[in-house]
């Protein structure tokens, strides 16, 4: 029943019960009791609804609090992962940089002694053939002494650039010492290596750098040795070094092979 209709009915009943003309009616007491009971029940139902509403409200608030806590903890978790990932990436990059620094020469960015030695050892273990060329810039000390170390460094960098662009992809060139470079020509014998190194020497002799109004260029001496199966790579290097010494003694600007 609609509230308005109910109110109208109750008000009608109350008026009937209060009216003196119905005072003697035999149904009046029964109606009075019924009216009373209805009003009490109505009040009970209203209280029940109120209690139920309050419970529902509490439950909803609790759910909202849980939801907010969950979202907050999710957000924190994401932030934690994000920052932690950032530090991990930082560490990975630092490792990569350290590895680069430990295997490369900082001035020329060429592989260093350590890296080419590892590569040579691997080739020897795999029983693969190779020829080594040890290159040395003739009279490099004079350039450092006459023009200063910065000019010497510039020359080294210019030589290195030409070296790197002239070599085949599978060759490896390392900075072996101050002005010495060790060239690893894999799967190459002495006869194939000689023209390669001669061509390279010609290219390097064409490299010039300017200092003041002067143009500087250098010549290269080279010593070659082919790896002999069974010998350690140090022995092959030693023979290349001997050939380089021979080339220097023979007047520099030449390429000699160790075949002894």
């Amino acid at each position, binding site marked *: 029943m609609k509230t308005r209709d109910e109110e109208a009915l109750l008000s009608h009943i109350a008026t009937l019960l209060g009216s003196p003309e119905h005072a003697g009616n035999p149904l009046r007491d029964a109606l009075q009791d019924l009216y009373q009971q209805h009003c009490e029940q109505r009040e009970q139902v209203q209280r029940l609804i109120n209690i139920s509403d309050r419970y529902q409200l509490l439950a909803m608030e609790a759910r909202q609090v849980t939801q907010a806590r969950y979202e907050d903890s999710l957000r*924190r978790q994401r*932030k*934690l992962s*994000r*920052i*932690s990932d*950032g*530090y991990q990436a*930082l*560490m990975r990059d630092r490792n990569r940089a350290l590895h680069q620094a430990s295997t490369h020469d900082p001035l020329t960015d060429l592989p260093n002694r350590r890296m080419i030695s590892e590569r040579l050892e691997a080739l020897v273990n795999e029983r693969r053939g190779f020829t080594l060329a040890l290159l040395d810039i003739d009279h490099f000390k004079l350039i450092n002494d006459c023009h200063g170390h910065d000019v010497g460094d510039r020359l080294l960098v210019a030589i290195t650039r030409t070296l790197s662009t002239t070599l085949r992809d599978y060759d490896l060139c390392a900075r072996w010492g101050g002005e010495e470079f060790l060239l690893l020509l894999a799967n190459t014998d002495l006869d194939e290596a000689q023209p390669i190194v001669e061509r390279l020497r010609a290219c390097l002799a064409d490299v010039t750098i300017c200092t003041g109004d002067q143009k500087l260029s250098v010549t290269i001496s080279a010593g070659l040795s082919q790896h002999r199966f069974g010998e350690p790579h140090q022995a092959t290097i030693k023979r290349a070094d001997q050939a380089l010494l021979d080339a220097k003694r023979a007047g520099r600007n030449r390429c000699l092979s160790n075949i002894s």
Partner: protein
Amino acid sequence: MTNMISDLDIPGNQSSPAIQSDWQAGRLAMQGDSYPENSYELFDQVIHWVRHFLSTEQRPLHLELALVYLNTSSVKAMMDIFDLLEEAFATGREVSVDWHYDARNERIAELADEFREDCSYPFAITPVKGEP
């Protein structure tokens, strides 16, 4: 000063940050890399100190950080500390952070900035020339 707890002065090493607290000055400082074995044990002391200072004192609290690498549990601990500061700041307390980083390593600043994201109190990220 009956509520004052003893100050922290933990020497750092390769994997653990150096930590100093100064109750009188309202200052807490941490420097170095942080990937210690006993991460929770280490940072629990720091969190305890911060919590205690904020609940007993009304004076300002300032953090001086020069942290470099942090592992995950250290990141978590720092987030907890920054949250404590945020709570205190919300009640009107004066708190601040200054995070120093090596100017050559900009990525540390980016990570510090990620920490700062939820902080409404003064949080400076300052480059230092050369070694921090």
